[in-house]
């Protein structure tokens, strides 16, 4: 059985009187430990699908089951707890909290999980070493380059050892070399720590690094 299971998933948005079907009857399984990519042009439903898997949004129809949790049956509080315990997010615009240092940003999820300070420090020290950003712990996001910020975001996503890391266009705001470096890093973490990665991109170079590619078009999976 897959870590992520989507069965006949439909997501419809209402923009005024207009109805937009962002995801149309998607069936998908992602196994634990996979390094998978969602590929497709803008508007193909990549972000919507990641939001549904990450419990940021709920499907209009169908089932989204992640790590045994049927997200359609969860209350907002249960969804928050699900995200905290099982999901790591990496966003396109890094989304670091500007008033916190790199270390505090990376520790944020651990703080929410009430992990003791020493354990938090150890875990972040380890991840910063792995990600090659040791020494930047006390810098604020605006004092870091785009690539460094995204590495801090990866550390934040990995800090609580989630079941799956969801990355929405993680390299979209990075130059080509930095993007490739970041993907290699994510790949290494996937290999070494066994963390499942599902990321979206429309950059063929980035997509090419994935073990498995799921192509989307107009809200549907295409071969």
């Amino acid at each position, binding site marked *: 059985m897959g870590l992520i299971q989507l069965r006949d998933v439909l997501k419809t948005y209402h923009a005024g009187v207009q109805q937009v079907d962002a995801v149309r009857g998607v069936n998908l399984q992602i196994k634990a430990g996979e390094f998978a990519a969602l590929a497709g042009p803008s508007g193909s439903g990549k972000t919507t699908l990641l*939001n549904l898997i*990450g419990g*940021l*949004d709920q499907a209009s129809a169908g089932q989204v089951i992640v790590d045994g949790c049927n997200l359609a049956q969860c209350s*907002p*509080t249960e969804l*928050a*707890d*699900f*995200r*905290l*315990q099982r*999901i790591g*997010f990496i*966003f396109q615009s890094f*989304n670091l*909290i*500007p*008033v*916190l240092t790199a270390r*505090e940003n990376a*520790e*944020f*999820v651990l*703080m*929410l*999980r009430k992990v003791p300070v020493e354990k938090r420090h150890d875990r972040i020290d380890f991840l910063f070493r792995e990600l090659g950003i040791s020494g930047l712990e006390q810098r604020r996001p605006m004092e870091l380059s785009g690539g460094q910020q995204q590495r801090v975001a990866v550390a*934040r996503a990995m800090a609580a050892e989630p079941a799956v890391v969801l990355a929405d266009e993680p390299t979209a705001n990075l130059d080509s070399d930095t993007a490739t470096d970041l993907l290699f890093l994510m790949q290494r973490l996937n290999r070494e720590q066994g963390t499942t990665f599902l990321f979206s991109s429309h950059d063929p170079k980035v997509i090419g690094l994935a073990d498995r590619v799921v192509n989307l078009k107009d809200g549907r999976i295409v071969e």
Partner: protein
Amino acid sequence: MMSLLRLAWSNLWRNRRRTWITLAALAFSIMLVQTSHNLSTGVYSQMIESGVRAGSGHLTVYRGNYLETRDEKLGFNPQEFSEKLKSIEAVETVLPRIYLAGLAQSSRESRGIVLSGIDPLLEQSINPILKRLPASSGLPDMASRQALVGDRLLKELQLKEGSKFVVTLQNRQGEMVSELLRVHGVVHSGIRHLDRSLVMIGLHRAATLAGMPDEVHELALILKNGLGNETPAAEIAALLPGDRGLRLYFWDEAMTNLANAIKLDYASQQFMFLIILMIVTIGVVNTLLMAVMERTREFGTILALGARASVLHRMLFLEALILGALGLLLGTFFGSLATWYLVEKGIDLQNWIEGELEFGGVVFEPVMRAVWEPLWMLKIGIYVLSLCILASLYPAYRAGRIVPAESMRK
């Protein structure tokens, strides 16, 4: 909690100018409310002290319903208990007084008067009217025909010091009686109606004239420390004979004009305080709401990372708490500074206002001085802090309703 506190603190200083403006408004309003209250309390105390010394004392003994009716027949003999009253530790002095309505006639004019029988020796150190008597006049003799006359009455009767005039009134037996008096000195209370009607003579002469020897209408008690927490009212009341219809009144029952004027003044001031605090609350709501609006995407991220809405609630609560606490500290610092100045130096109104300052029928010193009311200052601080916390409720509610997926699309 510590990390949230640090986050809340950092959030406050993202927009330094806005936070400083809000803090300045908070601190200024706290300072204003604390200082105004301390000054008012000081001025009210001055008024009450002036009022009770010239008027009916901190505590007063009357017989029956004399206070309401001013029935001259309701006199009483205080001899057997006034000495006991004087011996009470908290009592500074006991002033016996008689008030009689009558007519004063000079060779040219006549006017309605209040003939007041007093003990000048007892009154001189207490009663501000007698305190203002020129040293050259000296006090009138208790048993003589010497009288102190209000300055306006003196003018209206066309008298001068040393002039003779006749006072006519009805005694207790219902007979019209007259007495020839001589102007010994001129008194000026600053209260118009008193200065045009007051004639003061010795207590015994007044009592004899009214046909009520040894009796008085009023026994005014002046307390050493004013009306503090330990008023000896119960002790005094216990010393009054129970069979003569005597009753002890507090100053605010005996001087309702002054008491009501103070109440009204303070009520209007409290209304002002309320408006000031409401404006400040709106300011805090605005600051926090703006902060929420600006951070929609960030709050969305925090929620996406797995925080419950309550984390955002707590964070905004802490931001409001810090803002309120800083405002409280700054406001109380400046409020204390202003109060210290007003306690030490006061505000001398003589530079701005000519003539006497009368309020509620009482003339008071033209230098307004504050008093320290630390508990009240603390109370207003806690109010403001509570208002800040209340002000965070709506912004916190708005923050908690942010949908992460939507906020991230913006």
